[in-house]
């Protein structure tokens, strides 16, 4: 049996539209215009118990809408959906006690109080037995090394510290499924690494099924053996994360800031994205990355250089076009 099952899942919204200015406002007062936007279309997804699945896609692809349907926050327009055998939008407490959701941009902590106070609220809401509560709290706090933050007012915690507390809160009741929507958004590299290590441990130790949406390739690459790529509300890839990155993430994006004015010549095989006398942004095929960097550093006086993974939007576009590096 699958923990998550969807078939032909579709969600459409009616969106209000009006022309600009006062005239448009007056017209819309008497004649409302709506457009239908399909955020998720014919989506089939099966996730087995204990899997760690990455849900990736550019902004507005429909990832969050999918998570909201899976957690029952919104109702689908059509199609089949079952999570742990429940229809999520029936919002049954028996279902809600078996999953947890962490949204990177929406906190569930009580900002004016301490994280420990929020934990007490969750203990009551989820009816967590005293022993289980104490054991889990000790375990997760130790895993994060976050004991010192327990009794601090939440609003005084840094973003990274707060996200650790969000995750501890979400896991106190031993959820079978954990939905994570951009848990590392806005965090610095060390905090991202700590959270990744924590999630890996939770997945392996407790067998928690985790569905992770993230903009950060590194989150998905280091945590999820399986990836589902979403583009324009549809599933465009479902399979091995390694194979996905090998096949489609063929280039690196390099940004160089020159120490003075430079007449930078684009290296062979690279594609220029942005160029000025002080800055150049270009993509380079992965296998040529080392050689190109070596050449640039030898030939130009530099202030700064950064190397990034290719943008998710580019990868989705390549999947659409069936374009691979192979």
């Amino acid at each position, binding site marked *: 049996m699958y923990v998550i099952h969807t078939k032909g899942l579709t969600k459409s*919204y009616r969106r*209000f539209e009006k022309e600009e200015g006062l005239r448009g406002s007056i017209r819309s007062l008497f004649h409302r215009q709506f457009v239908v936007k399909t955020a998720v279309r014919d989506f089939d997804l099966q996730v087995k118990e204990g899997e760690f699945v990455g849900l990736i896609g550019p902004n*507005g692809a429909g990832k*969050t809408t999918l998570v*909201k349907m899976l*957690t*029952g*926050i*919104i*109702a689908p327009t059509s199609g089949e959906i079952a999570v742990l055998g429940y229809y999520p*939008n029936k*919002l049954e*407490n*028996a279902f*809600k*006690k078996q*999953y947890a*959701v962490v*949204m990177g*941009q*929406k906190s*569930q902590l*009580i900002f*004016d*109080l301490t994280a420990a*106070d929020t934990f*007490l*609220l969750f203990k*009551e*809401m*989820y*009816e967590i037995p005293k022993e289980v509560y104490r054991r889990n709290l000790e375990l997760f706090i130790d895993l994060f090394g976050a004991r010192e933050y327990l009794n601090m*007012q939440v609003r005084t915690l840094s973003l990274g510290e707060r996200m650790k507390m969000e995750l501890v809160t979400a896991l106190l009741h031993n959820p079978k499924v954990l939905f994570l*929507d*951009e848990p590392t958004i806005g965090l610095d590299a060390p905090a991202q690494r700590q959270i990744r290590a924590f999630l890996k441990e939770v997945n392996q130790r407790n067998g928690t099924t985790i569905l992770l949406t993230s903009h950060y390739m590194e989150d998905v690459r280091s945590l999820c053996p399986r990836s589902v790529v979403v583009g324009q509300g549809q599933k465009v890839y479902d399979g091995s994360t390694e194979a996905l990155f090998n096949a489609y993430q063929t280039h690196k994006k390099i940004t160089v800031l020159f120490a003075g004015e430079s007449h930078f010549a684009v290296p062979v095989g690279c594609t220029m994205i942005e160029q000025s006398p002080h800055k150049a942004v270009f993509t380079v095929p992965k296998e040529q990355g080392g050689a190109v960097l070596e050449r640039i550093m030898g030939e130009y006086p530099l202030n700064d250089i950064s190397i990034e993974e290719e943008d998710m939007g580019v990868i989705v576009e390549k999947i659409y076009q069936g374009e691979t590096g192979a």
Partner: protein
Amino acid sequence: MSKNMYRNVRFILLLIKLKLSRMMVFRFSFFGAFFADGTLFLVQLLTFSTIYGHVDSIGGWDRGQMILFVGTFSLINALNMLIYFFGVIGIPDKIKRGDLDQYLTKPINPLLRLTFESVNPGSFLLVVMSVLIIGYGVSVSGIEVSAGLALAYTGLVLLMTLLWYDMEVILRTIPFLVISANGIEQLEGHLIDLNFKVPGVLYNGVLKVLFYFIMPYGVMSTVPTQLLSGVVTAPGLVQALCVVVVFTVFTLWFWRFGLRRYKSASS
């Protein structure tokens, strides 16, 4: 007490404790709230003194009944502020901003949590002062209050507080269905203001239908006052009780209806 009810009571008590803890974090707010609500009450009292100070009878009601009416309205309003007003008032914003997501994904009734998570102990002073006004009204009217009458009056006031709650929730459920419902909330404010000053016995015809059955603010203080002063009729009492039952059933249905249409907000 059923297991579910026991759980809800425990949860409500925890929400109250957390709210008190939150208030105590900000010491000024904790003590300031008592001062603010007490001041509000005094302003209202002055308004009523100015309007009714030189009037002996309105619509057949004598001065004692008028004081009872004012005290009862104040009491219902104070209970509203004490228990649920500050929780319910935030519902439209939570719908618009998608903050209801966090309530829907937790295994506790979202309306129960919203209702009791922002209790306002500052309004307790208002409850006490309202009771004192009612006591004064009783003495001016020369009413002998038996234990049974006190109990019936208290029960009726609590039912009318529930009716006020129903109205607040119904109006704040509308944003599930429309883009903005600010106008409706403003209208509610004006209607409450009007009915705080005018006893329901003064309404006739369309206004009576409006304030007794559609926006039943006219019933809320009038019927308990009639009960206390011994002029309530059996059909009037039954009618008021039916209004409470119908509105409560409708509120719960309408809330669930709205929830099914919740769209959240894009992240």
